[in-house]
Structures are given as C-alpha cells and as structure tokens.
C-alpha cells in the first residue's frame, strides 16, 4: 500500500512517536511542503489545464449565447477552427505530455459545442439525449488512445446524462420502464463501467489511480440504493422484490471485492452507509409513527448501526495498516 507524505507523518503522530514540539520540523523533513521545483511543475500543469478549460468553456458559452450578430458560417468556423487548433497541437506534440492531454480534453469538450451548434442551426429536431450520446460516441476513439482517465470519465458522464434524458423523454430505458427504469439504467452504466475499469486497470496501470473507481462506485451505489428504496416503498413489497434482491447482490459483490480481492475502505464505508439508509427506510415504511417511541427506536437503531459500521471499518483500517506499515 502506497503511503503519502502526510499519511506517514499522521501515522507517526497517531502512534505518539514524535513529540508535539517536533511536528513542524518533521513535516518539513518528510517533504510535506513541496520544494520550488515541485511547485514549478505543479503550477505549470495547473495553469495549463485552467487555461485549456477556460478557453474551451469560453467557446461553449459563446455558442450557447447564439449571437445573431455573427452569421452561421462564422460560428461554425470559430468552433471548427478551435477544434482544429486543439487537435493540431495534440498531433504536433505527438500525443504525449500534459499539453497534448489538456488540448485533447478541450477538443472533446468542443465536439459537444459543435454538435450543439449543429442542432441549434439546422433545427434537427433531435432529442437532447441524442446529442449527449452522439457526443460520447464521437470522442470514444480519443478516449481509447489518449490514456487519460479524465477523458474516460467524461465519456461515462455523458452516458449518464444521455440515460437520464432518454428516460425523461420516453419514461423508459431499454428494457426498464416506470419509476425504477432510470435507477436500473444508471446502475448498469456505472456498474459495468466500474467492472470494466477495475479489470482493465490490472493490465493498464495508468487507469489505476483510485479516484475514478470511487466515483463510479458512488454512482452505481446510489442507483442500487435508490432501487432498494423504491422496492421498499412500493405497495407490492410484502415479499422481497427483484430490486431488493439485486441490491443484496450488489452489496455482497462489493463486500467480496473490496474486502478480500482489493481492500478499499472507501467502498466498504459507502456500502455501510447505503445499508443504514435502507434499514432506516424499511422501518419508516413498515412501522406506525403514531407512537413517539418509534422515533426513539429508529434513532437508537441508526446510532447502533453507524457505531457498528465505524468500529468494523476502524478495525479493518488497523489490520490493513498493520499488513502494510510504511
């Protein structure tokens, strides 16, 4: 397990190995405060990304304004020119390095602007979901070659938005209709993306940065929890419905993968939180609230479940740290 500078220092402080008076010196010695060369590299990257994003969004906002003083051709030329410049510099840089990556990401944003401009100009009558889905398909080849996690997240984010808008338009999503349709859709999109990400990251180390998996797991977990809540609150829930069954399977899979295969406390903490919410919801829907004692019981149950979860996770944290101390 990798430990950052701050984690190393916190660990020493937690175990009372350093006297409080030595904290500031230890922080400096362990490199908690970056040196000037590290600052230079950081600012170089930060300013590059900020400028790329600001200029990209500037073009998008300009298109959204629909400025009538500029004619149709002029607007197309503006977006396409920006796109060509971004891609040209990407190719000129050989597709490597931060400049190339930042510009490819900006180009991916500009593709969305171009599609929006196309729909705005020719009144294609297309539903908004088609715009986002087409956008994701058009930038998919770039995501495949760019080795940039943020670009993959943009693609998956666009799939999420397209699914939401599709459901809004047709009140159904592929095989799923009604209230649960969108929750099923988001669970599938984010769940499959998470599985694919975890499997791929075993062979492609640049994908294994940690935070994208956590983001995808949050999306999938929220959708699964939502399904369980809908199942509990629907009238048919005298027995266990398919939604609650799938929720149980998701929770079980989460435990198996992130406790045994690839320990990750964040994922387990998310599972615990979801479980607490679902148990509370079960009580809310199946207990009478005429008696104030019910509220007290629910409060006690929530405190008990949270305490048990936190204790278990703290124990696991201790075990994992013991397995990989420094």
């Amino acid at each position, binding site marked *: 397990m990798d430990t950052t500078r701050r984690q190393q220092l916190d660990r020493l402080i937690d175990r009372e190995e350093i006297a409080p008076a030595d904290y500031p010196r230890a922080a400096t010695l362990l490199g908690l405060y970056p040196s000037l060369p590290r600052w230079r590299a950081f600012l170089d990257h930060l300013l590059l990304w900020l400028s790329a994003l600001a200029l990209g969004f500037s*073009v998008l906002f300009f298109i959204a304004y629909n400025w009538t003083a500029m004619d149709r051709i002029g607007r197309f030329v503006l977006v396409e020119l920006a796109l060509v410049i971004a891609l040209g510099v990407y190719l000129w840089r050989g597709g490597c390095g931060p400049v190339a990556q930042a510009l490819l990401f900006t180009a991916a944003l500009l593709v969305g602007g171009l599609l929006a401009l196309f729909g705005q100009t020719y009144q294609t009558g297309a539903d908004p979901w088609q715009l986002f889905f087409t956008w994701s398909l058009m930038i998919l080849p770039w995501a495949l070659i760019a080795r940039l996690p943020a670009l993959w997240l943009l693609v998956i984010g666009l799939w999420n938005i397209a699914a939401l808008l599709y459901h809004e338009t047709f009140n159904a999503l592929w095989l799923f209709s009604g209230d649960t349709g969108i929750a099923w859709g988001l669970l599938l999109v984010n769940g499959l993306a998470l599985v694919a990400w975890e499997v791929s990251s075993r062979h492609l180390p640049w994908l294994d940065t940690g935070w994208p998996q956590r983001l995808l797991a949050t999306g999938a977990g929220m959708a699964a929890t939502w399904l369980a809540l809908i199942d509990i609150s629907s009238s048919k829930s005298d027995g266990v419905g398919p939604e609650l069954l799938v929720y149980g399977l998701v929770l079980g899979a989460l435990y198996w993968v992130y406790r045994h295969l690839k320990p990750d406390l964040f994922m387990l903490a998310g599972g615990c939180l979801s479980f*607490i919410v679902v148990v509370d919801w079960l009580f809310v829907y199946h207990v009478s609230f005429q008696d104030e004692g019910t*509220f007290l019981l*629910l409060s006690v149950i929530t*405190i008990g479940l949270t305490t048990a979860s*936190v204790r278990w996770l*703290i124990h696991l944290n201790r075990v994992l740290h013991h397995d990989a101390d420094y």
Partner: protein
Amino acid sequence: MTPTTDPRPRLREAGIALQPASDQGPSAPWYLLVLQGIGGWLSALFLMGFVGLGFLQALENAAVAFVLGAALIGGAYALLRRPQSTFLEQLVLAFSLAGQLLVAYAIGRWIDDINALFWVGMLVLHTLLAVLMASNLHRIFSTLFAALSLFFLGVETGAPYLVAPLALALACGLWLNEFRYPLRREAIKSAAMGLTLALLVIQYLIRFPELLDSGMATVWVPHWLGEWLTGATLGYLAYWVVKTNEVALSSRTMAAGVAALIALCLSSSFAYGLTQGAVLFALGFAISHRLLTGLGIVSLLFSISTYYYRLDLTLLEKSATLLVLGLVFLALRALLRRCSRNLDGETAHA
C-alpha cells in the same frame, strides 16, 4: 511522489528523538467521518421526531424548547468529557444536533422571524460549540454551521459575496498553520475542514438568485470585491510558499509576482467564484493534502456549472470573461517559465 520507505531514519538523522510507538491505531480516514456525520444527522432527525411528538404541547412554548435543546447540548458536552468511544461520539452528535435544532426553533419563535438577529444567534451558538465540544466530528459540523450562519447573515445584511472569500482566507490560514500549535492540531484541522466544506455548500447556495434576493437588505458589497479578496488569499499562499522555501526574492521578481496577482484579480472580477477552486487546489498541494486537492477540483467543476446558470451576466459576457481568464492563465504560465531560471539563481544565492 508516494514514498513507501520508513521515514524514521531520516528523522533520526536530523536529530529528532523518536519515542517508542504506542499501540494507538491509525486515525480514521475522512470517509469514516462522513459516514459518522450522516449517521449522526439521521439519528438526530429521528430524535427530533421523538422529542417533537412526545412534547408536542410543551414545545408550543419557545422557552421550553430552548431549555430542552440546551439540556440536550449540555448532556452532549458532559458526555464528551468522559473517555471517548465511537458509540459515545455518535450519541453525542445525535443529542447535540437535535439540541441545536430545538434551540434554533426557540430563537426563531422568540424573534418571530428568520432575520439577521436570528443568524447572529446561530453564529454565536455554533462558534461556541466549535470551541467547546471536544470532538473532531462535532467541530467540523459546528464550524460548517457557523460559516453557513455567517453566509445567511451576509444575505440579510447585503454582503453575501464577502462570506466565501472570508471563509477561504480563514481556512487557508488554519490549514497553513496546523502545526503552529501542535497540541491543538486536531481542533485546527477540524475547523479548517468545516470551513472548506462550507465553501462548497455556499457555492451551491449562491446558485439560487432568489435566495440572495430574499434578504432584507440590497446587496451593497460588489461581487468583484469578493474575487479580489480571493486573490489576496492566493497572494498570502504565495508568500507562505516563498517563506517556507526560504527564497530571497529580488525586487524585480517580487514586482512581477504582484503584477501577476493584480492581473489575475482584474481578470477574475466577473468570474463569481471560479478562482476559489483553483486556490483550494493549490492549497491542497501546498500542504500535501489529497482530500483538499480533490475538494478543489470539485469546487472548480461546480463553479463552472453555477457560472453557466447565473442570470446577472449574459452568456456572451461570461464567454468573454472566460476567454480573458484563459489568456491570463496562459500568460502567467509563460511568465512562470521565463522566471524559473532567475528564481533558480536567487535560490542558489539565498
């Protein structure tokens, strides 16, 4: 960038005497605090339901609600003076949050309005709790609520755009000085985290113009002043970095730095919080705090969507602001690269 070697030999070599390790486990990661916090809130809401139903008649009287709320907070305070456990901390949080809701209800009924005076009361209450309650989780909540009370006070008094920059400056000051008072480090970190979270919540709240218009006073503090204050915080951060790295700057480099900061302030005058995320991101890097860096990215992404939906600027004006900001960032990058060699020379002489 992620050292995995034992840091102890390096510390010993530098003359730091290491004590034998205690069997204290590692401190809880941030997401366990989130789990505890949400669990605490849910418990507090159910507890409020119990108190509300059980004392329905009595709560008609604001004084009874106040006394009951104060008793719950007092009980939580007393519990925290005992040796702490996870269960106790969870219980304290539920008691205290329910007590705070009751006290807020009582003050609201006394004043018969939710106005500036109400938010002054909330600010005082939460600030006191942030100081007195000996629990990191509670301190995060109290500081967050104190900052939000200050924001609503700002809305009521016509100065909402000052609150986020002020919270950012305070958070920056606390994060950069977390080791200055070693025995108070945990309290400082909790307060700083509460303020950082408040920044994100305020960023969300500012999305609703009707909320800003709901205050009694018209907005008299211009929004650009808030952006300039954010710039000043960035200036403080830059000064801190220079001081920490013991660099003696030449007057020419210093002048270039000040000019760059002024250019950034001027170009972000109509950016409505866009630069806040960048400052948080840089702050996270300055102290090697990954969570803070992540929150900076969240703030950046959040601010661009909030900015899109603002109604007081046209999309053309927003596009122009972003264009200018993008060009200023590029110019700053070029300036940085040019200054690098000079700075190297100055460091060597220092």
